[in-house]
């Protein structure tokens, strides 16, 4: 059944299957819709088309019409309209669909063409797969297996090129492996807007290099490594660390800023080896900032906190502290916590009859994947009702209350109070209960310290600048001596006399759905991979700081510029 063609849809025939696709789609994408794989190297859905690798060659043809009468010419053998096949293969990436287009991706000519291309590509390829980091996710390996002829007729000596060129601080180039697809060049030019790469020399001596005096050092340089179909561009950080087939992939959200880029965390046996982008065309396409890829180092950081007491003993001490200072407790929650943790924080505030403060972080947005608001979950705090207004950058209110002696105890969740503007004297005046993964001035001054988890060790949800709620999953097991924030908060809430809250996400989301109107119809398990956009209208009046990013345009002029 073919749906009636809408004005912007054209019907094409790919390997005998008819499909209606939007006008302007190229053959590779159209074929993908009918589960036909057209191999390619240089083509990338988010980059311009150059058609230089020639791997996506296909056979195509148009229905025959009489040039004079424009009447269809029928094939007497099949009784259908005759197809005029173009005698030479065409590239799939550079061919946009047109009505009635017929494509053959499986034919002797296509097979021959692919084998020829593969043989040429492999002529100068060093075949050092055993030491190549791309092995296992290499398009050259995959397509040589799938479409290559299986042996080489090339007996001459291979080209030798430099093997460890440093293109920039984070990218190492192995020129021998490069197949000159130019994806990296196009990315730098079109997406990163930092045109530093190019080819020099000709023929088999062509070499990828930086322009003289320049380096590939923009904050998106590692995307070139991601999109490199072979092992030419490698991440200096990940180079020779671990083979990709050992790594477990977990879907995580980047907490670097309110963009909430989707990432994949690659880990093995509790150790994270790298972070790569996960395609989400509504948020980050297939890109990720370099700065987001080193966040995993916090998991095994030297300043991780580890408990020396049982969680029960710590909770008992915190409860005693709460009892000794009734009515004089403040809570500093965090816009870096997950929605669930903020929900618990709200409950804790209610139970302790305390005021909740948040700390805002503002930086320079790069209009791509780093927004000015460096907190990943300010909107989560709004949605859960933890705060009503946007947080300030400094805790001046709290400082004043401490100075006035109104506040005797502070529960700081994932926030360094010293960094948020409290002086050492002010910290000394109050009893602090600190929840956090890493040591800082606050944990040093705290009476009770609950070591908790980094974002890679727990599951939860974040609400990004588009009010898109996205889930992050636990990539590695919790570090020794650290407890899940939710478990700690649930026990603290119980100790403070609040409701009993489940720390397990499935049952917790039933409670959240019941209490938070905006999330009423949701469950954690059913949250789509690409996230779910919440209703932003109740918060339209709030002066968010973000400027424009890749897939977000602020409703009102950016305040970020003023603060920056």
């Amino acid at each position, binding site marked *: 059944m073919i749906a009636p063609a809408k004005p912007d849809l054209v019907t094409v025939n790919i390997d005998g299957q008819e499909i209606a696709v939007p006008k302007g789609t190229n053959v590779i994408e159209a074929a993908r819709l009918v589960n036909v794989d057209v191999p390619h190297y240089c083509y990338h859905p988010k980059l311009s088309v150059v058609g230089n690798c020639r791997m996506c060659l296909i056979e195509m043809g148009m229905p025959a019409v009489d040039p004079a009468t424009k009447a269809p010419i029928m094939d007497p053998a099949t009784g259908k309209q005759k197809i005029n096949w173009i005698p030479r293969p065409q590239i799939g990436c550079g061919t946009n669909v047109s009505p009635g287009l017929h494509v053959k991706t499986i034919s002797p000519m296509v097979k021959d063409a692919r084998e020829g291309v593969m043989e040429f590509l492999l002529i100068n390829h060093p075949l050092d*797969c055993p030491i190549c980091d791309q092995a296992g996710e290499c398009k050259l390996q995959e397509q040589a297996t799938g479409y290559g002829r299986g042996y080489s007729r090339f007996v001459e000596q291979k080209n030798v*090129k430099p093997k460890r060129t440093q293109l920039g601080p984070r990218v190492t180039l192995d020129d021998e492996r490069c197949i000159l697809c130019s994806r990296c060049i196009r990315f730098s030019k079109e997406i990163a807007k930092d045109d530093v790469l190019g080819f020099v020399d000709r023929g088999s001596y062509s070499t990828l290099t930086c322009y003289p005096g320049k380096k590939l050092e923009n904050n998106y340089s590692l995307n070139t490594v991601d999109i490199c179909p072979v092992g030419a561009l490698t991440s200096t950080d990940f180079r020779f660390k671990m083979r990709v087939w050992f790594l477990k992939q977990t879907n995580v959200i980047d907490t670097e800023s309110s963009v909430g880029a989707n990432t994949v965390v690659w880990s093995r046996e509790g150790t994270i080896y790298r972070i790569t982008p996960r395609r989400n065309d509504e948020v980050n396409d297939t890109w990720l900032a370099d700065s987001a890829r080193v966040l995993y180092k916090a998991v095994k950081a030297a300043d991780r906190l580890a408990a020396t007491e049982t969680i029960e003993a710590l909770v008992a001490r915190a409860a005693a502290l709460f009892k000794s200072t009734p009515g004089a407790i403040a809570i500093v929650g965090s816009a870096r916590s997950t929605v669930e943790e903020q929900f618990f924080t709200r409950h804790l505030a209610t139970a302790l009859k305390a005021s909740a403060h948040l700390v805002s972080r503002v930086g320079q947005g790069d209009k791509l994947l780093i927004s000015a608001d460096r907190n990943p979950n300010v909107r989560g705090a709004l949605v859960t009702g933890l705060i009503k207004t946007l947080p300030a950058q400094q805790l001046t209110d709290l400082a004043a209350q401490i100075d006035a002696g109104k506040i005797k105890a502070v529960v700081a969740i994932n926030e360094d109070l010293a960094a948020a503007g409290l002086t050492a004297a002010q910290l000394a005046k109050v009893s602090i209960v600190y929840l956090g993964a890493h040591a800082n001035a606050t944990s040093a001054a705290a009476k009770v310290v609950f070591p908790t988890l980094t974002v890679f060790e727990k599951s939860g949800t974040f609400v990004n600048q588009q009010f898109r709620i996205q889930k992050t999953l636990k990539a590695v097991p919790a570090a020794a001596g650290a407890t899940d924030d939710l478990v700690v908060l649930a026990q603290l809430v119980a100790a403070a006399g609040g409701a009993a809250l489940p720390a397990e996400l499935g049952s917790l989301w039933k409670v959240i759905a019941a209490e938070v109107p905006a999330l009423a119809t949701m469950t954690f398990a059913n949250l789509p991979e690409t996230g779910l956009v919440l209703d932003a209208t109740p918060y339209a009046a709030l002066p968010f700081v973000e400027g424009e990013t890749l897939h977000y345009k602020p409703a009102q002029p950016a305040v970020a510029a003023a603060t920056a």
Partner: protein
Amino acid sequence: MAVITVERKPLTFLERTYLPQIAGGLKTTFKHLIAPKKTLEYPEQRPAIPVGYRGVPTLVKDPNGREKCVSCQLCEFVCPPKAIRITPGEIPADQADRAHVEKGPQAFDIDMLRCIYCGLCQEVCPEEAIFLQNQFSMSGYTRAEMVNHKDRLYELGGTLPDAHHKWDKKKTAEEHGNAH
């Protein structure tokens, strides 16, 4: 399929007494009692190891005394009981004698308490660096002793006198080949 019922041959009276059979059995065992012994008395006598024997896995060096392993971790991947553990490492560019190899094992451990001597590591090795050799007797007093580290693996493995030097070829190509 047709079922063919085979009639069991009825036993004769003598057979039912078991006695002739017992006598026959006793005769057989007595023959063995005085027959020459067929045992190999192990520590003094050693078995001849046949070609292709799969003993303790070892790492070998090439005739130039360089390690062949490039820590591709395929053996670690293929190892059914997960006995192999490799920590890969980069070889600095200034080690000129290592030819074109950029990568080598920082640590290479084979846990012989786990190893099942299947030989898949040898099969999969693209560099012909790991071999199951003639050594068949592994013993130790602690679990830690039963883990062969890199040094021990090279000590057990020795040198493989092969003539195929892939990385040397690459080096020659770099020096005399068609680099422009």
